């Protein structure tokens, strides 16, 4: 009987932990989307002409892409290298399957999975 209670308690503690973390992450993502919206609004206000905005937007998106790729490489080495030697890059559709498999097997987070896929398919 005591063992069963121990098992139930373990389940309960884990569930609470997960719920707390999820709630925390939701709050953070809401904050991030709010600040992104504010930044977007201020950028639109400061650049009146569409012609002038385009190159800046292009440069900003290119730098974001580069940053995501660098972060993806970091996540790839940190997560995949924990268990095995890093493989070569695969075609995007192959990598999409492999990353779904590793998401389940290695319990990658959603963010890690997205960044690693971006890095491995570019």
């Amino acid at each position, binding site marked *: 009987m005591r063992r069963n209670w121990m098992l139930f308690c373990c389940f309960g503690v884990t569930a609470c932990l997960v719920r707390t973390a999820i709630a925390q992450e*939701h709050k953070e993502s809401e904050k991030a989307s709010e600040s992104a919206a504010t930044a977007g609004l201020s950028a639109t206000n400061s650049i009146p002409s569409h012609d002038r905005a385009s190159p800046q937007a292009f440069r900003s998106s290119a730098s974001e892409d580069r940053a995501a790729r660098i972060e993806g490489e970091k996540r790839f080495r940190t997560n995949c290298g*924990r268990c095995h030697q890093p493989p070569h890059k695969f075609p995007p*559709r192959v*990598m999409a399957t492999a990353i779904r498999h590793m998401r389940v097997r290695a319990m990658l*987070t959603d963010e890690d999975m997205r960044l690693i896929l971006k890095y491995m398919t570019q």
Partner: protein
Amino acid sequence: MKKTRTFLISADRLRARAGLALLSFALALNPFATPVSAQGVSDEDVKPVPLLQGSVGFITNFTGGQPDLHPIATPVVLLPIGQRWLFETRATFENDLVQVPGRSGFHGGPVQKEVEYAQIDFIANSYMTVTVGRFLTPFGIFNERLYPAWIRNLQSDPLILPIGIGPSNASTGTMIRGGFKAHPQLNINYTAYFSALSTRSPVDSDRFAGLRAGIFVPSERLEIGGSFQHLLQQERSNLFGFHTIWQPTPLPLDIRGEYAHSRRGSGYWVEPAYKLSQLPFLRNKMRRTQLVARYQQFFAGELPNDALPSVNTKEFEFGVNYYFMDGLKASSNYGRQFSAAGNLNVWTMALTYRFVVPLGPTGSAQ
């Protein structure tokens, strides 16, 4: 008769409780369940293709002077279905070729075939995946993550591997698992599972319920975790274990270790592996070379287990791995085993190759 009935009722109750616990855990997460697309699943823009991957290997063992040739092939089939589903299965085809007294050459019996796992995964949301079917028992890290021949640093199994993983290394039942960022510097991963009793070979499994949870600190490349399992049959005992993986950032060094405890035995292993990429000469060769060592100790328990050593055992192994190219690896290691049943040398040489074959067109991203 009465006693048997009581046993059956209590077994049913326990099974129901374990099922209820899994269900309540799933429900506990449900309020936060959101469509996968809303969380920005990474493969939403890329249609995944079915894959055949896996490894083939030729392993030569000399245990106590007795040679044993061991060809092995482990294909894995991955079949993604839609945005949220994945069917995955792994089979093993292997044979043991040994010298028969009075005959020349090596002889083996029929090829041993086994379906190690066949599971359906449903990605419920960013935090939880539900798995049903036959799956590798997630007790510790070796069985689930380090077992394939192309991944493991040393070809021999740790002495404590049979603890907590059930017969044939797998469970038949259901599992929920996931990983999420709990803090900018901290990821948490968890697994909760229930396995039903199956005595039908080769899909035999024990009845148990268990948990595994781990924390991963990406900046330190450190993962620490623990496993707990309650056996719902036989002696109805508790099993527990701990695992760790650490890759110090400034060094090409991996340190892995596990501890497991059960009434049938307990023990630990520690395995450092160092890549020689920092040496200033023969750089091209050195970056492909890895030195590995493993020290392990096993303490016999109060109950017997055919898969575990019957007496206290210590073993030290060291070896060299050479990575010719992506997926092709040669490894060689020597070990010395010390036990009351007799000391012996263990030599292993292996060549392993990992392959990935898409089962459909890969050219288009859409």
